[in-house]
């Protein structure tokens, strides 16, 4: 091969490589160009993000991603889901492999700062709990001194667990396994005495994975605050606003009584807040860089926050979780949408 040609080719490759943007481009533009939202979810947690036997995903985190896809692209199914373990999730988001991480991730200071991430609101207020087999005869987390505890690595669960035991002068044997399936298998095989994760996760696992759900109890102590919500990268305020306000639109929709069944009639509502939210009065969509039907699409295709909650983790599902602190602020809970005006 002629060396001159080789050198010329090499020069062109270098120039082409240098012309690729250093990764900080506007995520929203990239999603619109691509036509798909890249959503990072868990490897399978019933009620939050779980694939069924045909590979279609469902869950609360999945519905949040669907709502965002509906508001940005007009189609709630224009999503590509990437299952991520607790260890991979942040690197996948930081590197651009996913646009948004909707994976029951706790909002903490370290993650908000030194990991280069932004949390776009809270979709589920949770707390960490413990699950033990009833046969152990334990009724409180303070009786767990010396127990073997199954936990996944790289989570706030791991840190809270050791803080709790240190604070109460107890010790424990950690059994630290990365894959959720393997950690479930280890607990139900008896390798460890206690399983710890967010209380909603415990309910989900007990309902879906336990050979006999009634053999296990979730201890009453909630040892931490775990506000779960969608996560995006630092450096893209536009995209952060889109995600944040889509979540608020779902909550505001429930507050205003808009659900997926009556959203079409609500287009004719005379309430100015509803008119602004659904785009009858234009302006909100344009401010976000989206079509004016952004909130309408989200609520119509996925439902409001209450519908999403009831469908995935509510009392009629196998998780049987009450709204509790996840209810609207007007009903005593913590779900509070900022005003869309």
């Amino acid at each position: 091969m002629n060396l001159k040609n080789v050198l010329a080719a090499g020069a062109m490759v270098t120039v082409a490589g240098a012309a690729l943007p250093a990764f900080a481009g506007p995520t929203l533009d990239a999603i619109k160009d691509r036509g798909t939202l890249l959503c990072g979810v868990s490897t399978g947690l019933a009620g939050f993000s779980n694939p069924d036997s045909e590979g279609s995903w469902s869950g609360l985190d999945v519905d949040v991603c669907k709502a965002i896809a509906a508001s940005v692209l007009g189609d709630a199914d224009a999503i590509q889901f990437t299952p991520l373990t607790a260890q991979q999730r942040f690197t996948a988001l930081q590197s651009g492999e996913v646009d948004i991480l909707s994976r029951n991730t706790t909002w903490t200071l370290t993650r908000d700062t030194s990991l280069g991430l932004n949390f776009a609101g809270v979709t589920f207020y949770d707390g960490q709990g413990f699950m033990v087999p009833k046969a152990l005869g334990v009724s409180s987390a303070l009786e767990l001194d010396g127990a073997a505890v199954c936990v996944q690595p790289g989570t706030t669960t791991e840190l809270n667990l050791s803080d709790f035991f240190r604070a109460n002068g107890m010790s424990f044997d950690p059994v630290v396994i990365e894959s959720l399936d393997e950690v479930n298998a280890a607990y139900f095989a008896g390798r460890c005495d206690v399983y710890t994760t967010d209380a909603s996760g415990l309910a989900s696992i007990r309902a879906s994975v336990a050979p006999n759900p009634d053999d296990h109890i979730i201890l009453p102590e909630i040892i931490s605050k775990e506000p779960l919500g969608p996560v995006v990268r630092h450096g893209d305020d536009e995209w952060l606003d889109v995600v944040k306000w889509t979540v608020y639109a779902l909550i505001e929709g429930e507050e205003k009584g808009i659900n997926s069944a009556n959203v079409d009639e609500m287009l004719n509502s005379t309430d100015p807040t509803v008119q602004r939210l659904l785009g009858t009065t234009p302006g909100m969509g344009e401010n976000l860089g989206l079509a004016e039907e952004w909130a309408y699409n989200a609520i119509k295709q996925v439902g409001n926050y209450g519908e999403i909650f009831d469908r995935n983790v509510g009392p009629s599902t196998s998780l049987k979780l009450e709204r509790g602190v996840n209810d609207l602020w007007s009903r005593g809970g913590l779900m509070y949408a900022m005003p869309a005006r």
Partner: protein
Amino acid sequence: MAVETQDFDVTGRSSALNDPRVRAVLYQVAIVVAVVGLGWYLVNNTITNLQNQQIATGFGFLEREAGFEVSEGLIEYSAADTYGRALMVGFLNTIKVAVIGVILATILGTVVGVARLSSNWLVAKLASVYVEGLRNIPLLLQLFFWYAVITVSLPGPRQAMNPIEGVFLSNRGLMFPIPESHPVFPFAGIAVIVGVIAAVFLDRWAVKRQALTGEQFPVFSAAAGLIVGLPVLVWLFGGAPTALDMPALRGFNFRGGLTLSPEFAALLFGLTLYTASFIAEIVRGGILAVPHGQSEASEALGLKRSWTLRLVILPQALRIIIPPTTSQYLNLTKNSSLAIAIGYPDLVAVGNTTINQTGQAIEAISIFMAVYLILSLLISVFMNWYNKKIALVER
């Protein structure tokens, strides 16, 4: 009539590029500049991107509090210690499983390799089945299998098997009593090392003596006597302390004694059996490569089959066996990073947790790469030295 000549113009008016030596230098300079430029571009790009997203950089995180527990380790560690110490615990765990795995895999691999060449049909066939079976199943699946077998088939701690007083086997691991700490034991440890050195010198002396007088000396028994006897003597002089730290079921689990965790056991089994199957084939190949005339001649001289193997065949086969076996040792060391799948806290497992809590993937992965590179280089250097030492000196 002037004849045009195109070659070597002494007036120097021809372009310097026509000189092949100048061209060679120019190409080499250009390539070096291109590689350095690419490297600089990559590093610069990475740093710019990290800064744009305000992800922390630098190795300062090694001094921050870790906040997570590690299930087992050779040194004291608690959640209040630093990330640096946590990584050190992981590193020592990796070394522990790699060293023990290499030793066991070598022994097992040699035995199976020789067994496959046995004239006993059953032994040879069993060895073949073992090698072909375990070579062809991915290591990760084997690790999952061993871990599942151990956790599922063993009973819980409250129904632990108790074959001998003080030894308990349950799905929390194998617990056995160890002597309670006493000042005599470090001296006993030194006595073991002294015994090993003495055994080496004894062996050398015995070989010289056999070369001079033809008499054999029972080196093996004498060496065993030294290595076991010297520490026992020290122990006797120290007052023969017999207090044992016995494991006892307290609350949820056993406390006291020494624990062999299921994670470590599963990782060790999986790595040893897998790597031994490869080493068995290497040993078999090395032995087959020694010309058959060697074993025929040695048997004609009246040497027993086991002496033939030990004194004639293996020394020649070792020259062929050692380089591929070095690769297998390196593979075993690097494969130990699969520990994260079954919960053994090796360097990569602890490091991954660190990456996740601090977000500093690049620094942590560069630590992994440096550690594995140094370990691998150490193993290679040692094996290359050993290879040179036993190489045949051609005349």
